[in-house]
């Protein structure tokens, strides 16, 4: 390195901003990801935050690269701490290469300063000169943009758009803040202390920048969702908010219910009358929905449930992530009835699988889950535009005849679903065991026939299973098994291993378990499973259905997502 050059990065830069809730870290994330994307960079962002509205310490990671980046890393290349305590908060992730851009008077001295590379950048001082320290986050946006040499006009346009709902004064001051910050960034480049040379990629322009939660909501619209009833609960609420925001545009009824019990009973009522309904919730809220889930099982009502997992038991860690509600979703609801559990790994999976969930639910008259988690719903990156070319809505409802019987016993278990007011028939559904007409019965022979009929649908579902995706050499010796949100983290970790005999198998459908599972597992000499929970729930499910015991496990349940580095380390331990 040149004299005075403190930091140089030619690709794949990880910027972390850290500060109190209320300091506008989310705004920085929003603005920078868009600005980077416009400038032609691949970008990824993920956040971790405390369960509070003000104070605490939250951070967001933004990765910028010339190639696609879609996973969370431990490494911090540039750290911008905006508050006392911020450095301590991410201390474990600071490396000798990390450069910290900060004001010493702001970040305090509760850490060993001598260990780190600091450059004093007056974010807050500049903001105070503009009129309020509140602008320091936008000064930081400007500084980062300046360091990347992004066109100031582009940056200003986005800042203006972002604040357009506020007063002229606020807009103007933020524009000054971003410009002053931009000049600070240029000054850093001129000083020769920092050099960033990341190439853009022409593919980025036509791509979309989508957050996990948005992909679920857009997939719901594509699946014909016209009714959502839910009760706010982190981290699931974004789907309700997104669909409420689009309600007028798409003719969607979006209702905040008084509790999760009402939410799921509304959704089932809506399906009964011909809507395509969903609920969005998290573990505790879903626990309240379990009786309703069982009702869907008995009524043979379709329903789509977005279950965004967070750590439990009980209130747990409300704003953090975990994959520990697989068994809850699998076994929830009294009695025996079929269901489908989907678990998107990529944002595009969330779109296509949620769309598919509405068709599956309607076609087979079963509950379909979309299992995500906080890490997934709050992460975003650029990805090819969702393809609507094969989107069509097939409503699986029939016009009823006068002698219509809702629960007609059929060979495949599916009774044509009528809805009230469409045809000459009457649609009778009952949470009690019922006869073919839907009326309450205690004919125990009929009871057996009805149970068998409902469960016959499980056989049909075998033909609809979304297969697992094998990534890596077909003749692998070592196999890494994962499901749901860990897709990209495992992908990047496996790609960065020193050996080429490792493949990974990602499950986007976790139940019913794909039939290929056994074959994939038997082909491996050694297998390890990666799960964001403490008891390896998916490994247990695999053992139950295949008899194969995956003994090697890499598990995490501290409330944070895996990072690529952690998995590389874990996989290297396993391989050795």
């Amino acid at each position, binding site marked *: 390195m040149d004299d005075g050059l403190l930091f140089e990065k030619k690709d794949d830069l990880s910027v972390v901003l850290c500060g109190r809730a209320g300091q506008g870290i989310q705004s920085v994330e929003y603005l920078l990801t868009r600005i980077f*994307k*416009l400038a032609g960079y691949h970008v990824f962002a993920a956040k971790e935050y405390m369960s509070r509205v003000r104070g605490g310490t939250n951070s967001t990671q933004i990765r910028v690269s010339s190639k696609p980046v879609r996973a969370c890393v431990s490494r911090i290349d540039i750290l911008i701490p905006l508050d006392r305590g911020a450095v301590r908060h991410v201390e474990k992730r600071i490396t000798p290469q990390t450069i910290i851009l900060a004001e010493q008077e702001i970040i305090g001295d509760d850490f060993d300063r001598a260990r780190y590379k600091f450059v004093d950048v007056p974010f807050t001082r500049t903001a105070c000169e503009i009129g309020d320290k509140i602008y320091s986050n936008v000064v930081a946006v400007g500084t980062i943009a300046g360091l990347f040499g992004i066109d100031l006009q582009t940056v200003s*346009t986005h800042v203006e758009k972002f604040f357009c709902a506020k007063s002229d004064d606020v807009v103007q001051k933020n524009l000054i803040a971003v410009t002053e910050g931009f000049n600070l960034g240029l000054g850093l480049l001129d000083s020769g202390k920092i050099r960033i040379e990341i190439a853009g990629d022409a593919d980025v322009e036509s*791509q*979309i*920048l989508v957050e996990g939660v*948005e992909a679920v909501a*857009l997939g719901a*619209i*594509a699946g*014909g969702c*016209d*009714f959502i*009833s839910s009760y706010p609960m982190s981290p699931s609420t974004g789907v309700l908010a997104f669909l409420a925001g*689009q*309600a*007028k*545009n*798409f*003719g969607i*009824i979006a*209702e905040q*219910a*008084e*509790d999760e*019990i*009402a939410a799921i*009973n*509304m*959704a*089932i*009522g*809506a399906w*009964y*009358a*011909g*809507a*395509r309904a969903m609920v969005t919730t998290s573990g505790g809220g879903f626990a309240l929905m379990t009786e309703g889930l069982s*009702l869907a099982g008995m*009524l043979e009502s379709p329903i789509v449930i977005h279950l965004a997992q967070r750590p439990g038991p009980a209130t747990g860690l409300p704003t953090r992530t975990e994959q520990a509600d697989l068994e809850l979703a699998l076994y929830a609801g009294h009695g025996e009835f079929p269901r489908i559990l989907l678990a998107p790994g990529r944002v595009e999976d969330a779109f296509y699988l949620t769309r598919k969930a509405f068709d599956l639910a309607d076609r087979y008259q079963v509950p379909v889950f979309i299992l995500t988690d906080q890490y997934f719903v709050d992460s975003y990156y650029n990805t090819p*535009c*969702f393809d*609507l070319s094969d*989107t069509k809505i097939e409503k699986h*409802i029939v016009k009823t005849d006068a002698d219509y019987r809702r629960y007609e016993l059929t060979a495949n278990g599916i009774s044509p679903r009528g*809805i*009230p*007011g469409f*045809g*000459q*028939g*009457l*649609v*009778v*559904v*009952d*949470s*009690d065991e019922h006869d073919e007409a839907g*009326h*309450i019965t205690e004919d125990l022979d009929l009871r057996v026939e009805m149970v068998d009929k409902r469960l016959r649908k499980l056989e049909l579902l075998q033909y609809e299973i979304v297969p697992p995706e094998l990534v890596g050499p077909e003749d692998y010796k070592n196999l890494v098994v994962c499901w749901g949100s860990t897709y990209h983290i495992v992908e990047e970790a496996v790609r960065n291993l020193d050996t080429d005999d490792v493949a990974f198998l990602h499950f986007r459908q976790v139940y019913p378990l794909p039939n290929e599972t056994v074959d994939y597992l038997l082909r491996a000499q050694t297998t390890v499973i990666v799960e964001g929970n403490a008891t390896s729930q998916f490994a247990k499910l695999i053992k139950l259905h295949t008899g194969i015991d995956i003994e090697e496990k890499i598990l995490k349940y501290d409330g944070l997502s895996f990072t690529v580095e952690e998995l590389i380390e874990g996989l290297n331990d396993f391989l050795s």
Partner: protein
Amino acid sequence: MGDIDIAWCPGCGNFPILKILKQTLAELAIEPTNLVLVSGIGQAAKIPHYLRTNVFNGLHGRALPAATAIKAANPALTVIAESGDGDMYGEGGNHFLHTIRRNPDITNVVHDNMVYGLTKGQASPTSRIGFKTPVQVAGVFLEPFNPLAVAIALNASFVARAFAGDAEQTREILKGAIKHKGYALVDIFQPCPSFNKLNTYDWFKEHTYYLEDSHDPADRNEAFKRATEEDKFPLGIFYINNNKKTFEDNVGIYEEDQQPLYERKPDFEKLHNLIETFKVAD
């Protein structure tokens, strides 16, 4: 429906209510195919099975959320949520409150016999103080739930009480409730000859009277005052508020397009345009 095995006890107050309901629906000429009876669980909640109509017999306490959604998904349907006092006011108490706030255009008929029948004789939210049961062995000491006062306090759009022993008046009240646009509560006093030996036909006759013709149902304060009378319970229409928008009107999707949801398809052109915005243009 002659061959139906009705699960009610001889002398049950549900029989006259069923008869009254059938007559009311016939007089209003509501087509069975256009009517949905929504109920929960309990003896009263079995009533939809004894009529020729569409039925959503859901979970205990959860009739109202389902009924609200059914009406919202297809406003052309006539929706009646009908169940007992334990179902609507106990297990479903929270939904009772919030459905009133939501104001869907549904009729909520509550068979109020002040006791749990199907579980064989425990206290219900409306059981009177001192009422002894195998569970409330020393007698009920909880303040009885006052559904009418609660509904009026929440500015419900139609609040009435009837008595199963008076078919003619109950029919008129029920007709008014079904024709009313907005949420309409009809609490119907009924005896339970098996498990409530206190609140019998005679007891109800002695302890009720009709609101005077001069009672102004637009007067909310007066309605509330009358709803709190408990020495003798007034019957009739206590309160009507015709100035409330219904839930279906408020959801904002039927203003330009009257089609029920099942007849609609998503606009993929619009969705395409929405997805395009995620490209983040300059």
